[in-house]
């Protein structure tokens, strides 16, 4: 039963990893951009939420009403005025530029907020739990986090396959030259994709910051978790990304159960094992 509990908690944490991964997967899918600063942007969103909760006196979830649009605006501008210039040829320029961005964000946060760790306080919800049995219980916060992850992935799926914006994303991803021929401005489409990605980053950042302590240096590890979830799930498949997050979360939970020091290692081993056995991930992109 203790095992069942660990696995259950792993599944729920997987929702957070899926949130890390969704934005990453989205921009890779639309414009083949690997955003090394993704994790640091998650941490940036956490700090912005911290400032918002402190100055406005609102709760972390409420702060998202401000932080998500703000991060989306940052994403649009970042893509439009910086990252678009790096696209089109080699995979290397965007990697280098986003790596530089990662360093800049980390140092900027360190400068402003110091290296002290912080946490967002969400109030009663943090301690609320539902006991399923005496050994098995679900925390309200992890449950909410998982539900939000499912909603975000479901929302993205709907947007991609049921809306004009999603159609534009898929067309531009298929063939950027021909997309221009039908009247799509790639620079704008890419900027919209990054805006959406960073709106999801805002949600991920708030859940990250409510769940545990954070400081300016933890971004790169979130990037790794996001990457691993994307690869395990299979590139370009949104529900696969959720499954990838869950697999990673469960692997970490099992590792931690065996020995607390093994938590992260177990996640990486699971990732490498999937990469070795199924390099295309469990749920590769649906081919038409």
């Amino acid at each position: 039963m203790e095992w069942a509990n660990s696995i259950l908690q792993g599944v729920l944490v997987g929702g957070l990893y899926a949130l890390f991964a969704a934005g990453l997967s989205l921009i890779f899918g639309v414009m083949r951009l690997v955003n090394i600063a993704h994790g640091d942007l998650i941490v940036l969103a956490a700090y912005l939420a911290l400032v918002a909760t402190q100055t406005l006196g609102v709760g972390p979830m409420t702060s998202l009403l401000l932080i998500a649009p703000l991060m989306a605006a940052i994403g649009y501008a970042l893509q439009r005025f910086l990252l678009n210039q790096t696209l089109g040829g080699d995979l290397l320029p965007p990697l280098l530029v986003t790596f530089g961005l990662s360093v800049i964000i980390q140092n900027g946060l360190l400068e402003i907020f110091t290296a002290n760790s912080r946490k967002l306080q969400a109030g009663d919800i943090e301690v609320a739990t539902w006991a399923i049995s005496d050994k098995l219980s679900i925390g309200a916060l992890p449950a909410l986090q998982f539900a939000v992850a499912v909603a975000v992935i479901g929302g993205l799926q709907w947007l991609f396959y049921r809306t004009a914006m999603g159609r534009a994303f898929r067309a531009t991803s298929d063939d950027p030259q021909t997309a221009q021929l039908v009247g799509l401005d790639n620079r704008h489409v890419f900027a919209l994709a990054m805006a959406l990605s960073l709106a999801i980053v805002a949600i991920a950042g708030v859940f990250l910051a409510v769940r545990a302590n954070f400081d300016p240096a933890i971004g790169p590890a979130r990037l790794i978790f996001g990457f691993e979830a994307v690869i395990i799930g299979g590139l370009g498949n949104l529900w696969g990304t959720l499954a990838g997050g869950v697999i990673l979360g469960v692997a970490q939970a099992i590792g931690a159960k065996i020995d607390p020091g093994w938590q992260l290692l177990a996640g990486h081993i699971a990732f490498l094992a999937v990469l070795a056995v199924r390099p295309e991930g469990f749920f590769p992109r649906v081919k038409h």
Partner: protein
Amino acid sequence: MPDAPLLEISRLDAFYGDFQALFSVSLDIAPGEIFAIVGANGAGKSTLLKSIAGQMPAPTESILFDGEKIGGRPAFSIVRQGVALVPEGRRLFPSLSVEENLLIGAQGGRKGEWNLRRVQELFPVLAERARQPSASLSGGQQQMVAIARALMSNPKLLLCDEISLGLSPLVVRDIYAVLPAIAAGGVAIAIVEQDVARALAASRRVVCLREGRVVLAGLSHDVTRAEVAAAYFGV
């Protein structure tokens, strides 16, 4: 006095790096006219269409469309201006269904008589196959999607690059049969075609390109086979 030209190209050069593909090409197309561009492989036909559609750099004043200098503008802005290209090889979006490929053609937002219902009336099979992935269609049906997608942008000028390539004669006949109906709505059509006889039969005027230069221009029913053959091969 004929209508003022819809499209006026003057002394257009085009380059791929150091390689010059077009040399001082000049031509004009009238509103509602069907205009043929013929020439051997590598003559520069696709390059010419790509220059008009904004897929090649071009000097601003070398291409005048509807009274505006459009040379070198980005493709997405030119299609909003009213020039639609049916690209060589069709270039449908594989992850979009047939219907989505059509709908995305209207992305530029130009108003006009063409819409999903009208293009499906023009090519009824596209309504039957609306939900299927575009890649599951036959070559001829895919070509119909490509033409219909371009029409969805409500162009004043439709550029068709080798719409008969790789298709059976029957299918080619069906596709060419709709061109007069499209032109009747006031849309000018430029067709690039390898099959010279078909191009001459379908068009009012023709130019022949050879090695990036206009080597023959005239009314399609006036030019003789011998003239075209001489221009085509440069003998």
